[in-house]
């Protein structure tokens, strides 16, 4: 069998974190390759390298036996590689036809000007749409299409650009089941026409049904590759998770109390979360695990008051709230470390000191006037508590710090307000191992101080390493709650994937 794409020894590091290590495997011409792995295993990074979004540090990608050297995604498109992203890359304000032909519109010359030949474009677009089984007018604006139709338009666009390898990154996450079946029919047809495809998905049942070959990535390395007959859902799950535990996590000696710190009662928001109930106790570290799009981030944003919800209530700090707002939540003792520290966590241009002081400002002021010396002392103490060397970076803008130190600044900022409950959304994302350890140590310390922690993560290992209890959320519903004694990565992953994946 002849390969169309060949990864040969691909390596990639981001800020001293190895994301891909010596990745080598082929994509066979006319096959669908299933690429599976946990969040953060390196699937997206690998595909971004193939799609020309980022460059590899080492190794080569060969297409048709020739080295592929890409400076940008346009060049990948020119070599016949088409990337269908998780978030679709269509312009919702333009028509289907316009989307299909950007950036190479059919042109004709009128009075010496190259103008878009609308009639040509419409006719070609119509043909293109029929080839993916869409019988729609090319003049419809993309915003008016449903997710399934958009997906097909995206594929039509790839075909229109003469793609020979199409990458699907979680294409079914926003589709209904009939739309998924329709997509699979189309993919099967494209395969019979000789198209090669790479299919990334968490839904292992789909992978087994659809793909010819399967590649499993773990921690940036290929742990298994072969025809699909060699795989089962169970085998894939254990391949994806089987990792030795070692001394990655600091020990904790304190135990949670029975005193509730935060209670979430029948929280519902149509289409996002449904009837969620859970309690955090003082001194308890509770993990919240779910796949991307499961509603885990939405849930914690609702608790903090950043997103609204239709029903339910949040009991915190001795009062019950049906419609929390951030400022009030903070006053009642809540802290919220957001998923994206650059966009929501920090004022990147402000100094370390200004950032750490921001949340707790009012408690270091009387009638609005800041007690400078007292504030400075408190900031200094808190910074050293999270092991930031404040003397050297006090006046420095946080954007000059490493990811790990930035995250410590966010933690210091919240700890300075002495919260009763901390919500940490992916606190270790994109930071190095040392900083991760520091974050775990701080979580333990907070729990020891009687704070309750809700730890959201897409890495099962760290939840198992740090938490007293893990809640699993799937499609907006709480589908499992596992106590420390029963921790088992396979069981948790199985719950998160749902019955669908393990047939």
């Amino acid at each position, binding site marked *: 069998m002849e390969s169309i794409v060949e990864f040969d020894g691909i390596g990639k590091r981001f800020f001293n974190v190895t994301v891909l290590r010596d990745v080598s495997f082929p994509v066979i011409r006319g096959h669908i390759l299933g690429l599976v792995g946990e969040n953060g295993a390196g699937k997206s990074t690998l595909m971004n390298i193939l799609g020309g979004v980022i460059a590899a540090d080492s190794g080569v990608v060969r297409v048709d036996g020739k080295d592929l050297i890409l400076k940008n995604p346009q060049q990948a498109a020119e070599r016949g590689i088409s990337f269908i992203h998780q978030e679709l890359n269509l312009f919702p304000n333009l028509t289907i036809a316009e989307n299909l032909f950007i950036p190479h519109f059919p042109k004709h010359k009128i009075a010496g000007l190259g103008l878009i030949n609308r009639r040509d474009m419409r006719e070609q677009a119509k043909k293109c749409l029929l080839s993916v089984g869409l019988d729609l007018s090319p003049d419809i604006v993309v915003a008016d299409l449903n997710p399934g139709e958009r997906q097909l338009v995206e594929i039509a666009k790839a075909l229109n650009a003469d793609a020979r390898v199409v990458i699907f990154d979680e294409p079914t996450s926003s589709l209904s089941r009939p739309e998924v079946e329709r997509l699979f029919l189309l993919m099967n047809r494209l395969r019979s026409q000789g198209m090669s495809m790479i299919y990334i998905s968490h839904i292992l049942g789909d992978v087994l049904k659809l793909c010819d070959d399967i590649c499993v990535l773990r921690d940036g390395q290929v742990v298994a590759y072969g025809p699909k007959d060699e795989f089962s859902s169970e085998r894939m799950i254990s391949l994806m998770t089987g990792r030795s535990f070692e001394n990655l996590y600091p020990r904790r000696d304190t135990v949670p109390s029975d005193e509730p710190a935060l209670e979430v009662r029948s929280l519902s928001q149509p289409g996002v979360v449904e009837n969620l109930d859970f309690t955090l106790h003082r001194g308890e570290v509770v993990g919240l695990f779910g796949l991307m799009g499961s509603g885990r981030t939405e849930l914690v944003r609702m608790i*903090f008051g*950043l997103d609204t919800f239709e029903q339910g209530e949040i009991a915190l700090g001795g009062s019950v709230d049906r419609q929390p707002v*951030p*400022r009030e939540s*903070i*006053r009642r003792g809540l802290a*919220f470390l*957001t998923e994206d520290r650059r*966009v*929501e*966590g*920090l*004022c*990147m*241009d*402000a100094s370390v000191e*200004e950032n750490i*002081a*921001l*949340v707790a*400002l*009012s408690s270091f*002021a009387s009638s*609005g*006037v*800041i007690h*400078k010396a007292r504030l400075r002392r408190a900031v200094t103490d808190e910074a050293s508590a999270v092991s930031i060397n404040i003397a050297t970076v006090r006046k420095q*803008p946080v*954007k*000059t710090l490493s990811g790990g130190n930035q995250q410590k600044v966010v933690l210091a*900022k919240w700890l300075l307000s002495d919260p009763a409950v901390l919500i940490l959304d992916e606190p270790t994302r994109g930071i190095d191992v040392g900083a991760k350890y520091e974050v775990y140590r701080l979580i333990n310390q907070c729990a020891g101080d009687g704070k309750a922690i809700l730890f959201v993560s897409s890495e099962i290992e760290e939840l198992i390493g740090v938490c007293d209890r893990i809640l699993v959320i799937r499609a907006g519903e709480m589908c499992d709650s596992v106590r420390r004694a029963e921790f088992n990565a396979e069981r948790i992953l199985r719950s998160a994937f749902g019955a669908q994946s393990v047939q």
Partner: protein
Amino acid sequence: MGGGGIQSMQGTGEVRVKAFIHDSSRAESSGRPTIFPGAGRFRNVAKKLLYSEYLLLYLTLAYLLVATQLVPGLLSSTNLRNVLSNLFPLLVAAIGQSFVLITAGIDLSVTSVFACSSVVGGWIMTSNFGPRAGSGWSLAAGLLAMFVVAIVIALINGLSITQFEMPPFIVTLSTMTFFSGVALWLVQSRNIYHLPRLLVTIGKGSVVFVPYALLLTAALVSTAHWVLTRTVLGRWLFAAGYNAKAAVISGVPIGRTIIFAYVASAVCAALATVLLMGRLETASPIIGQRLLLDLIAAPVIGGVSLFGGRGKIQWVILGALFVTLMDNSLNLLGFSSFVIMMAKGGLILFAALLDVFRNASTVST
């Protein structure tokens, strides 16, 4: 021409002394030798200087040094008094503008605050309200009305921006147009004269050689500096400008903070109007209209970032001084108002470019 009078209110200023005519190309090229000290070995020094906070101070000193050579009368007491009386209203309004710029906004509506508060205040101060007419009461009522008008305009700005999430530029452009129209309509384009003596004293008078306007401006400057550096509100203003999303999540009441910035801008504008009216002895619907460019230029030249989050009052003072000095000296050199406008345009572009460089310089690291 010391006091300026009606002419400078209409802003041409051409009538001032034209005695010192020099070769224009020489003045242009020698005006800013410190910025581009040639290529090669001076490069590092130049770069350091460009990014330095003190650049404006050096520029002002250098400019003064050159200008005093070219314009012998520049430091005469008559001219200095003229410079200062132009400086105060500009600086007062520029400080208000700085609050808005720090939150990453912009307030174009200040000229409509000038216009509306001027005609409403002037009308009340000069109206015949029975036995109280002409007394201190009518002055007090007039002043109060001026600030009320300013706050009303500011609240419209602030609420549109925070509640409906409209872009500050378009909101304040609209209120500027609307309320400038209102002011013209209220008085049917006529000026109001015979303002109370006390008001004129505030605008022109001094106590033991210290102008009242200086006292008022100094009080405002120190209050503004104190608010920005010492209060929770000040930190909130900066946080709103740095990253509004992160600020909200950190519990900053961002709506109130931004509304405060626009109220501060309008209240400062009303105070500037008081100074202008006192100096010109006139209330007018076009009072201070030509100041808009200068009062945005002064903070920007003073290093207040157009991207929000950065700015210090002490440099705004220097920025306002630089703009006023440049205006005045070019005028004394006999340049027409057109040339002065071009020079100012260039200066603001340069300041904005510097802002972009300074912003980018730390991003890459």
